[in-house]
């Protein structure tokens, strides 16, 4: 005997505790199975690209902090690389190393958030998140030393970073590197040996490599599907050609792989930070440039970095004025959302939030 059921449409968000910001997705269920998915975007649109057109090249740095607010340093870096390409300049070596170091610390902080919230969405309320936030807090304290702010850093400038490190930064960084190793081990012990986590994530919402490439996703989501693709290796920027690191690659592209790739990337980032500390030499950190920059009329540049969520690019066009004529932001979170349907269709209600969380979107960047 079969019971006749009707599909039911449910709105998740835009104000939902586990959608990573004001993300709304309209889902149609058949019983517990997901049959239709429709993401609805735009609740956090602030017009960053338009605002950039009426600020000068240095002032736009403050806007980039607010794109992906969990990895502001990397946003700064992407924008500054684009402006440097536009002007044809290069920062001094110490500036490059400081940028790389700050970006990798930020990657650790961002991945810790991703992992913490991912586990929270599996039902582990509070505890693992607090473990990861404890470590993230120390990175933010380091950022406060570097640039006086924890989230809205505005640390980098076209041509380097705004100023050299304070004298007490290096001892504090050393202490962090020594202690973070143990903290990371603790988090890994807590999570990777947890049976519930394994059962809930292994084999859930797999993303085949060809689908991932067709949807042009990037970052840990792409690498979890088994594609070895990382802009830090393919087109090294700043000091990435001076340091050694591996790219962790997953196999199946399921939720577990996405989580695992992030955990491994934290280790690799730690490696890069250590090498930066060993290789960095005294010197100037910023090119002497006029306060108000001007590029040649008609000049175009596309600066890209491997951000914590994927490829982050800034496309700048100049008309010879003091501000960009056009600033297009290629944000990884928005592009990574294109796989929502592939992840969710056919899976159950209970896995929906977990799969969304494993993509690690950030609405500040999706809507811009």
């Amino acid at each position, binding site marked *: 005997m079969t019971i006749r059921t009707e599909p039911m449409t449910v709105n998740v968000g835009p104000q939902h505790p586990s959608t990573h910001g004001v993300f709304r997705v309209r889902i149609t269920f058949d019983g517990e199975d997901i049959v239709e998915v429709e993401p609805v975007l735009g609740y956090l649109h602030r017009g960053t690209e338009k605002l950039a057109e009426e600020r000068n090249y240095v002032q736009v740095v403050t806007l980039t902090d607010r794109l992906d607010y969990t990895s502001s340093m990397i946003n700064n870096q992407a924008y500054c690389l684009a402006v440097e390409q536009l002007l044809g300049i290069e920062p001094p070596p110490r500036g490059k190393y400081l940028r790389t170091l700050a970006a990798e610390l930020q990657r650790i902080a961002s991945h810790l958030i991703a992992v913490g919230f991912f586990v929270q969405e599996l039902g582990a309320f509070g505890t693992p998140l607090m473990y990861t936030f404890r470590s993230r807090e120390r990175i933010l304290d380091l950022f406060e030393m570097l640039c006086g702010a924890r989230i809205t850093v505005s640390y980098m400038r076209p041509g380097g970073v705004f*100023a050299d490190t304070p004298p007490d930064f290096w001892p504090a960084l050393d202490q962090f590197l020594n202690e973070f190793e143990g903290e990371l081990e603790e988090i890994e012990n807590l999570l990777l040996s947890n049976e519930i986590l394994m059962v809930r994530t292994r084999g859930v919402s797999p993303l085949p490599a060809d689908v991932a490439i067709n949807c042009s996703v990037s970052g840990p989501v792409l690498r979890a599907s088994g594609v070895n693709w990382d802009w830090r290796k393919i087109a090294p920027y700043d000091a990435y050609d001076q340091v050694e690191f591996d790219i962790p690659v997953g196999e199946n592209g399921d939720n577990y792989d996405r989580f695992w790739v992030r955990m491994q990337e934290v280790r690799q980032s730690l490696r890069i930070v250590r090498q930066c500390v060993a290789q960095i030499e005294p010197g100037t950190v910023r090119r002497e440039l006029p306060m108000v920059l001007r590029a040649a009329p008609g000049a175009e540049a596309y600066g890209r970095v491997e951000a914590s969520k994927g490829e982050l690019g800034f496309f700048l066009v100049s008309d010879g004025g003091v501000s960009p004529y056009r600033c297009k932001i290629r944000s990884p979170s928005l592009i990574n959302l294109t796989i929502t349907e592939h992840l969710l269709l056919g899976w159950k209600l209970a896995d929906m939030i977990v799969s969304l969380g494993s993509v690690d979107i950030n609405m500040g960047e999706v809507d811009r």
Partner: protein
Amino acid sequence: MVKGLAVTLSNLARKPFTTSYPEQRIRQHPRFRGEEFTWYEERCTGCASCAKYCPLGIIKIVTSPSETAPLQGDKYRLETFDIELQRCMFCGLCVEACPYDALFMGSGFEEGQYRRTDLVITIDRLRQAEKNPSTWFRPQLEGMEYRPGAGRPLGWREVGRENWRWHQHEKAGMRLAGGRNDNEGEA
């Protein structure tokens, strides 16, 4: 699972990582970009570089030529120096733009008010405020073991970088040194 329990057990004996705010205060780095801008009138020439460089345009400066001889190098008199703190995002670009080390980021973070208009910092408030500048973008403050919260406000003579490029020909405060007596900043 046993491993997980071991982690939990090892944390039982550890002292808490958090601080409870009103009783204990977190250690704040001198570079912290806080509210309540610190401004040294003796150093300010009224050039309005800060107002021009502010991404949001929230600094309002009105000047008039000083009654005493401007031709002898006397500066402009400042009539208005309003900072609309409610719209400020504390990026610090105004401080970066200031060529005379007259404007500094503040070090406080407890600027809560009941009305929005109270958040506008006026020139009188800037004059009367205790000078606890942040060391953000002011490397000359970093070597001198100065901590903003330590209860030793800095006078205008202590905060400049007179050996900088911009100060070679024209030292800030130099014009005030002869003739006019100024008791501020002697502390």
